[in-house]
């Protein structure tokens, strides 16, 4: 065993399923795969049967630990480890929640899973629940994703009808109920504790931690909460085994994940690639290169909450560690490509508006800080800013960073601080020329002609 681990983690490893296996996206393009008959014809729910028959829950947790699977929601926490934090016994029932509240700008992988292959998610939920000895699981679907929500609801109904959810699943003696719940449209509800508040019927405010959900979670019970993609990977791990899954990726970031490629590329879309694949491979080989032959200006590699990378960092491998070393984060896998005509201030303004609108309003720095940041970015973008605004932006970010109640406030500062660091000249140009450096705003002075966003 030790030998085989060595062989698969060396550079010239043998890859059992070829260089680009499809664990999570397999069969995604099969017509009708969203119906249980088709899903089963293509081997669906076989992994569930295998899990229930061949694994004790503890063994399953161990298998997931072995696979090296890490959370695909953004933080990248080891999934098996997270499960093992659940106390062995507790007076209150324990729960599993699937966080399908995918809302990070630039991220659209969970939506695809839910819309195209919801049964894979449901199968993952049952396997994950069995592994964590949970008898009631919740799938919390982002409110805006109405179609995805209906797909998941139908998949759960079909699975109930087929006896795959409910009492004594496949004769194993294991019971599970699954409840699908739809959000009401709030980015903050993707934060796990706010999600639980929302599930319990309250306003989506993040909760105080500790206690962490594994100890006191939904309805006060020990709760494990995983991302859609994480859970949807479980059937493949059970089917192929931890060793095969773990053969892909890097030593610390194993397996594959879906990268959501968007922006100024020829072929935007979802690509499942082994972790550690260089950004260049994604952008140039899979994404078909820059749209219209333009030059690359910057890349946001993990959703709008992470710092920018520059063209000279295009060879950075897309795994958690390499991205951290490059000063950014792998995050949710939302890779946003910006070309040379993109006004950075405008792009940052647009992203910051998102955080302002999605701030829950609970804590002061996030509530007031995002508002103020937008006000300043708006006037900079429209040519009415002052040079001192640039340092002020940085200091406001400093007053938010690490001082907000939850990570949303921190996330809002990433693009601002990193863009000022990398593109300060472009900010200064806005102040001095009262116009953008590039893009449509560069050819006319907007200061006088454009109505500020706040006045609309």
């Amino acid at each position: 065993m030790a030998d085989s681990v060595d062989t698969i983690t060396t550079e010239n490893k043998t890859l059992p399923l070829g260089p680009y296996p499809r664990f999570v996206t397999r069969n995604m393009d099969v017509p009708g795969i969203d119906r249980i008959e088709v899903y089963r014809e293509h081997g669906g729910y076989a992994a569930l049967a295998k899990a229930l028959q061949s694994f004790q829950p503890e063994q399953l947790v161990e298998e997931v630990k072995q696979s090296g699977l890490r959370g695909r929601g953004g933080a990248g926490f080891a999934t098996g480890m997270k499960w093992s934090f659940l106390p062995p016994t507790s007076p209150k029932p324990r729960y599993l929640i699937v966080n399908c509240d995918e809302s990070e700008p630039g991220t659209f992988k969970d939506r695809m899973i839910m819309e195209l292959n919801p049964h894979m998610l449901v199968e993952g939920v049952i396997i994950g629940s069995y592994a964590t000895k949970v008898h009631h699981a919740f799938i919390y679907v982002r409110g805006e994703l109405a179609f995805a929500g209906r797909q998941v609801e139908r998949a759960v109904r079909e699975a109930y009808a087929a006896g795959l959810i409910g009492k004594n699943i496949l004769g194993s003696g294991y019971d599970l109920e699954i409840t699908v719940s739809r959000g009401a449209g709030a980015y903050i509800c993707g934060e796990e504790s706010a999600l639980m508040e929302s599930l319990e019927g309250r306003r989506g405010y993040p909760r105080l931690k500790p206690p962490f959900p594994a100890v006191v979670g939904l309805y006060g019970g020990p709760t494990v909460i995983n991302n859609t993609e994480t859970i949807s990977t479980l059937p493949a791990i059970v089917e192929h085994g931890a060793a095969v899954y773990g053969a892909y990726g890097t030593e610390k970031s194993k397996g594959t994940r879906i990268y959501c490629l968007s922006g100024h590329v020829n072929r935007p879309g979802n690509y499942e690639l082994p972790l550690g694949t260089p950004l260049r491979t994604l952008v140039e080989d899979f994404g078909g290169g820059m749209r219209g032959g333009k030059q690359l200006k910057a890349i946001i590699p993990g959703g709008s909450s992470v710092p920018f990378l520059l063209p000279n960092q295009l060879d950075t491998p897309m795994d958690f560690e390499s991205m951290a070393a490059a000063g950014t984060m792998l995050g949710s896998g939302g890779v946003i490509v910006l070309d040379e005509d993109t006004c950075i201030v405008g792009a940052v303004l647009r992203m910051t508006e998102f955080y302002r609108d999605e701030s829950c309003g609970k804590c002061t720095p996030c509530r007031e800080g995002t508002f103020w940041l937008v006000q300043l970015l708006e006037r900079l973008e429209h040519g009415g800013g002052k040079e001192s605004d640039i340092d002020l932006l940085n200091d406001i970010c400093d007053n938010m960073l690490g001082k907000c109640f939850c990570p949303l406030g921190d996330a809002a500062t990433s693009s601002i601080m990193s863009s000022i660091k990398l593109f300060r000249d472009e900010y200064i140009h806005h102040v001095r020329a009262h116009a953008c450096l590039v893009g449509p705003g560069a050819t006319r002075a907007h200061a006088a002609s454009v109505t500020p966003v706040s006045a609309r």
Partner: protein
Amino acid sequence: MAEQEELVNLTIDGQPVSVPKGSLIWAAAQKLGIEIPIYCYHPKMDPLGACRMCFVEVEKMPKLATACTTTVAEGMVVSTTSAKVKKGRAGTLEFLLINHPLDCPICDKGGECDLQDFTLRYGPGGSRFDLNKRHFEKPIPVSENILLDRERCIACQRCVRFTQTVAMENGLVMEQRGFRIEVGVDPAAPFDSIFSGNVVEMCPVGALTAKNYRFVTRPWELKKTPSVCGNCSVGCNVRVDVRVDKVLRQYSRTNDAIDDGWLCDRGRWDLDWINDTERLRTPLIRRDGQLQPVSWDEALRFVAERLRAVRDQRGARAIGGIGSTHTTNEEAYLFQKLLRAGLGTNNVDHAHGRFPATEPGALPWAWSDSIAGLEQASHIVLLGADPYHRQPIVDLRIRKAIRAGARVYVVTPEANRLDRLVAGVIRYTAGHTGTLARALLNIITSDGLARGEQGAQRAADRRASVAQETPERAAQVAGVDADALRELAREIAGAKGAVILYDEAATLEPSGATLAADVLDLALITGNFGKPGAGAGPLLADNNSLGARDMGLLPDTLPGYRPVGDAAAHAALGGAWLATLPAEPGLSYTEMLSGGVKALYVMGANPARDATPEQLAALDALDFLVVQDLTLTETAQRATVVLPAVAYTEKDGSFTNTERCVQLVRRAMQPLGGAKADWEILVGVARALGLGWTYLSPAEILSEIGRTVPLYAGVTRRSLGAEGVRWPFAPGERTPEGRATITGSPSITWQMLAEGVARAQKPGGELIAPRGRGE
């Protein structure tokens, strides 16, 4: 202390401190006297961590910690003054101020505003925000009494959390999100709670203001006096805020044992009667059928002459006195002393419930446990009681008990605000509270639900007396569900600790003659007595209802519940008062109002308001009627002499609340010109009668009470301290936390209390003075 608490040692700004495990850094800093600024945190509510004002730096923590959410750990090193902390706090204040209007000069909160104060202490000198601030229509009403200025709101959510988690009334909610967030009224639940005023007091800025206080004063113009509310029998601790000659508001002065830091709207705002322009400013004597102003000298002389004349012509028994449930203990004591020692009659009483002692010396009107004890109860039964309207802060404590898991049963004729929160609701026809109590006794005694030897004995004693009072009969006469009563009886009998409370008014119902004793028996038989979170008692009506009884405003007992015929008490009191006391019981309140007396002295009561036509005729037929009151009440309008008195905010004294806590009332303002405190008037009348009374202050009277009344043995103003003392005062009668309780006895008697006092005597015979809490 019963259990040694586990302590955690840490240092804050270099100063070592030890606090109980689980404490917040904020609390540890409080203990050291180090201020950590807070907005969202409130010591009576769960931490929220929203305002980000209470930053501290903790060694080995990468980020700043919020002191209100971080619990202490052994060896923790905390700084509240590091550069990082200063920047963090200044940053938060700058954020809070970007949209906060600079209207301090016209804001009612200015001068007592946490945002103003903390900005001065921790804020940046200026703001870098050079854009437009948000504007809202201002103010908008959130209730009949409270207005909201949304621009000033800093979204700390104290008010919303209070209504939702403390008052459990769901009036206020947060609307919108992000920078658009604002406080609003739940469209499904109007903000009409009797506890609403607390949100005004808790609001750290001027966002929520009371309608009756807006633009009336500035905080620094107020004279603030710690005192006790004079409204209901709970005795909430308050700060009386007076501007020149008007009481503008009462604020809560936290006393965890009584009010838990809250105050009801009645206590907070119902003060107009003190500021009433119709108040009497001069004594009046009826001449030619008209009440005409006279000097105090003339009035007092006239009263003395007429009283003496009646006594000389018709005997002392022709004189009677009706005292008050509102005046202080000192005044009640002097009033009965004037009648007993000065005029020689036991005809002294006040309007009160029926609490006949079914066994010698029993005190069925004494609530055997306490308000704070409700939190430890597993069951609370409200029998014909509506504390939400009549003793609101008790209702709030019941809500706290509900959150702690108590099963509450509301047994009332009318719908109750607690109905939707409780384990059970039982309705019946008004007037039948006593019928229900006896039906419960019937179930308990006939179904063998007694607990303990004492309970079984008592059940055997009572069985015959309630044999006919079956739940079926109760169903017939009181329209109550018999099965629900059976279930309730079983719950009480099986309770870990049940508290059964009834309203004093229920004892006055036709069926209520023995209600007090029956409820006490219910508790005794089911073993719900003499342990924490268990007991029985009335919820009395007024601020000094219990004090009036304690001080002997009763025709058959002397102060401290010693029978008027008790020879020893006679000798002791007579000796102290230098008088021969009448030994036969006097006339009761109703007897005095039925032509039993020829001269009637009324202090702070208004019997004419609720009188029958016959009683009114009797009042009119009196030879002499003297009334001491604030305004020309229905009774005063019939008086021969009216003597203008003052409100509790204008005098010193003490009140005894419904759970036996004796508390200090302090003079918060100059008495109204021309009016006098009741005790001063009584001293004046006594002196005019030739009695050698020399009291110069209520303190002196209280000390005399401490010397002559065993129930209050050793009481002095000093011993009552800031938070009062509960009788019995004997050291042996206290809980480990220092609360006085009545335990270990099947019934409470004054003999028992006297024995307790005897036990508390030092070897030299000197009384050990009662200890105030925290001493």
